[in-house]
C-alpha cells in the first residue's frame, strides 16, 4: 500500500482508488494544459467578427449564406421563430432598425417582416485561412524566420559552450576566488535584463552593434541560470572519474570536452531547451536594438499588428500559431532528453 502510493501499482490488473485518483488528475491536466493552446489554434482560424463574439464559439463558425435570384450579393440565412410558433429558415434581404426584411429562398418574391429578436443566425464551420495567407504576403516572414533561427541557434551554441566551461571550473576546481565567483553568479542570477535595458543599450551602441543580430545574441549569452544549473549537475559526477583521467595524462581541456561534457548531456539538453525558448520568444530587447526590417526577428514582425488604437487580432493570432510550430518541433525532437534524459539520470 505505502509503496504503491509512491512507486507504482504492485498488483497488475487490480485498480485501486489511488490509480483512479491519479488518472483523474492526469485527465484534468490534459484538458487544462492542452485546452487553451488548442483554443488558440482554433481562434486563429476565426474571422475578425467571429473572434469577438459572445458567447464565444469553440469552432470557427461563420454565417451560412444563400444566393437568391434577383439579389446580387449572397444573403445571410437565419432561423426565424414565426408569430404562429413555427420555425422557418429565411434569408435576410436587409435590416432596417429593429425590423428585418426576409424571404424564403424557395419563394424569393414574398418579403416577410420579422422583428430582429426572433431570428437566430444559422452558422456553419468555415476556416478563415486568409488570417494566415494575407499577412504572409504582407510581411517578409521568411526573412524574420531565418533571423530568429540564426539568433536562436548561434546564441544557444555559445551559451552551451561558455556556460558549461564556467560551470566546469566552478564544480571541479578548488581555487582562490572561487567563492567570490560563485557569489557573483548567484548574485546576478536574479537580475532580469528588463531593468538594465538602458545600460546594455548604451554598451551595444558604443560597440556599434545596433541593427546587427549580434546585438541580440551576445548580451544574454552568459546566463547565470545556465552556469548554476550545469554546476549543480556536475557536482554529482564521480570525482574519481576525473582523477583517473588525470592519471591517464589527459589534459584538463580533454577531461572537460571528452568526459565531463558528455556526462552532463541531460543538463545541457535542459539548458538548450531553455535557451531556445528564451531566444525564440525574446521581444523587448530585440525591439530596442533592431530597427531595420531586414534584421527583425519573428516576435517583432508579429507584434507589428499591434497599433496605437487597434490590434489586428486575427493576424496576430495566426502568426502566433506560426511561431509556435517550430517550438513544437523542437519539443518533439528534444523531448526524449527532457523526459528520459533528466529523469533517468537523476539530478542529485
Amino acid at each position, binding site marked *: 500500500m*505505502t509503496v504503491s502510493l509512491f512507486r507504482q501499482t504492485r498488483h497488475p490488473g487490480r485498480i485501486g482508488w489511488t490509480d483512479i485518483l491519479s488518472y483523474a488528475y492526469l485527465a484534468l491536466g490534459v484538458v487544462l494544459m*492542452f485546452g487553451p493552446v488548442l483554443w*488558440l489554434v482554433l481562434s486563429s482560424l476565426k474571422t475578425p467578427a467571429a473572434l469577438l463574439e459572445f*458567447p464565444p464559439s469553440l469552432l470557427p463558425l461563420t454565417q451560412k449564406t444563400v444566393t437568391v435570384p434577383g439579389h446580387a450579393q449572397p444573403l445571410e440565412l437565419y432561423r426565424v421563430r414565426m408569430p404562429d410558433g413555427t420555425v422557418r429558415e429565411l434569408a435576410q434581404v436587409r435590416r432596417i432598425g429593429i425590423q428585418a426584411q426576409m424571404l424564403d429562398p424557395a419563394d424569393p418574391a414574398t418579403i416577410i417582416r420579422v422583428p430582429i429578436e426572433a431570428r437566430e443566425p444559422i452558422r456553419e464551420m468555415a476556416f478563415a485561412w486568409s488570417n494566415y495567407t494575407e499577412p504572409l504576403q504582407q510581411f517578409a516572414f521568411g526573412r524574420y524566420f531565418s533571423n530568429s533561427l540564426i539568433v536562436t541557434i548561434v546564441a544557444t551554441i555559445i551559451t552551451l559552450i561558455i556556460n558549461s566551461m564556467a560551470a566546469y571550473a566552478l564544480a571541479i576546481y578548488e*581555487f582562490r576566488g572561487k567563492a567570490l565567483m560563485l557569489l557573483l553568479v548567484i548574485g546576478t542570477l536574479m537580475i532580469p535584463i528588463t531593468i538594465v535595458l538602458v*545600460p546594455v543599450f548604451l554598451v551595444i551602441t558604443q560597440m556599434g552593434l545596433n541593427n546587427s543580430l549580434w546585438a541580440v545574441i551576445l548580451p544574454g549569452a552568459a546566463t547565470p541560470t545556465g552556469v548554476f544549473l550545469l554546476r549543480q549537475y556536475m557536482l554529482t559526477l564521480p570525482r574519481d*572519474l576525473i582523477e583517473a583521467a588525470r592519471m591517464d595524462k589527459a589534459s*584538463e581541456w580533454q577531461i572537460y570536452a571528452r568526459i565531463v561534457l*558528455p556526462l552532463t548531456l541531460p543538463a545541457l539538453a535542459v539548458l538548450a531547451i531553455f535557451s531556445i525558448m528564451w531566444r525564440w520568444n525574446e521581444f523587448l530587447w530585440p525591439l530596442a536594438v533592431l530597427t531595420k526590417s531586414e534584421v527583425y526577428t519573428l516576435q517583432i514582425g508579429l507584434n507589428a499588428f499591434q497599433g496605437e488604437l487597434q490590434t489586428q487580432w486575427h493576424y496576430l493570432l495566426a502568426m502566433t500559431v506560426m*511561431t509556435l510550430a517550430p517550438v513544437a518541433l523542437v519539443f518533439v525532437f528534444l523531448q526524449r532528453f527532457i523526459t528520459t534524459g533528466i529523469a533517468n539520470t537523476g539530478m542529485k
Partner: protein
Amino acid sequence: MADASPPTRMMPRDALAARLWQAASGLLDRPMALVQRLVGGNRMAWIFLAPNIFFFGLFVFLPIGINIALSVTGGTNLFLGDRPHVGAAHYEALLDCRSYLEPGSCREDHFWKGVANTLKFTLFQMVAMVGTALVTALVLNRKIRGRGFFRAVYFFPVLLSPVVVALIWKWILQRDGLLNAAITTAGGQKILFFVDPGWAMFWAVFVSVWAHMGFYTLILLAGLQAIPADLYEAAEMDGTPPMRVLTRITLPLLWPNLLVVLVLVLIRAVQTFDEVFVLTGGGPGTATVMIVQYIYETAFANQVQNFGRAAAASMLLGGLLFALTMLQLWFARRKAA
C-alpha cells in the same frame, strides 16, 4: 550509470552532434594543452571561466556600473556625459515614505506598491508552484500507462512565450471569455475577474504556475526516481503510514532537487513582468503592478523617460534580491546540514 561507464571517450548518443563536437573540441586540444603547461593545472579554472566572465563583465557588471552612475544623474538625456548630477535625489524620492508598510504614504507610491505586490506574488507563487509540481511529480512517478505522454503534456506550456500564455488566458478569463461562457451555461453569474484585486492576483499566480510547473515537475520527478525502491519496501514492512513515508523518506531525499526548484522559482517570480502585465495590465487599480513593471515604465513607457529614477529603483531591487537569495541559500544549507 556513471560508475559503470569507461573513464574516457564517453560518446553522446547523438552521433552527428558528437562527431562535430569531437572535431571542434579536438582542434583546441593542442592549444589548450599548451596553455595548461603555461599556467599550470589548477589555474586552468580561470581559463575555463574566462569567456563567461568576459560576457558577464560586458553585459552584466558594466551595465550595473552604468546603472549606478545613471541613478545619481537626472534629466532625460541618454548619454551619461549629458546628464546633470543630482546626488542621492532619486534614492531620497524613492525612500520617502511616512510608513513603509503603507505604499500610499510614499512619494513614489507605485514603486512601493510594486514591491508589496511582488512579495505577495512571489510567496503565493512559490507555495502553489512547488505544491503542484510535487503532486504532479508524485503522480507521474507511479507506474501508469502513457507516462511519457503525460509528462510531455505538462511540459508543453513551458515552451510558450509569456506573452502568448498571458494572451490565451486573458481571452479565456475576460467578461465574455470561455470561462464566463461556461459559468453562465452552468447557470451562474458572470464574474469580472480583472476588476477584483483578489481574483486578479489569483489568476496571475495560476497562469504562471500553469506556464512553468512542467519544468519543475521534471526536476522533482528526476529526484523521485533516484530514491531507491528498497527504502519504500522496508517502510512498508514496518507498516509506516503513507504521510510518514512522505515526510521521513521522500521529502528529505528529494531535498537537493527541491532546493534547486525553490531557488529557480524565487528568481523567476521576482522577475515576473510581461506575463502578468499582459494578463492584468497591473490592475485593477495597482493591485498587480510588479516592481519590474514599475522600473520598465519609469524608464520607457512614461512620457518623460526617467532613466535615473528607474536605475535607482533597480539598484534598490538588486540589493533586495541579493539579500533574498543569500538568505534562502543560508537557510537551505542549515537545513541540509
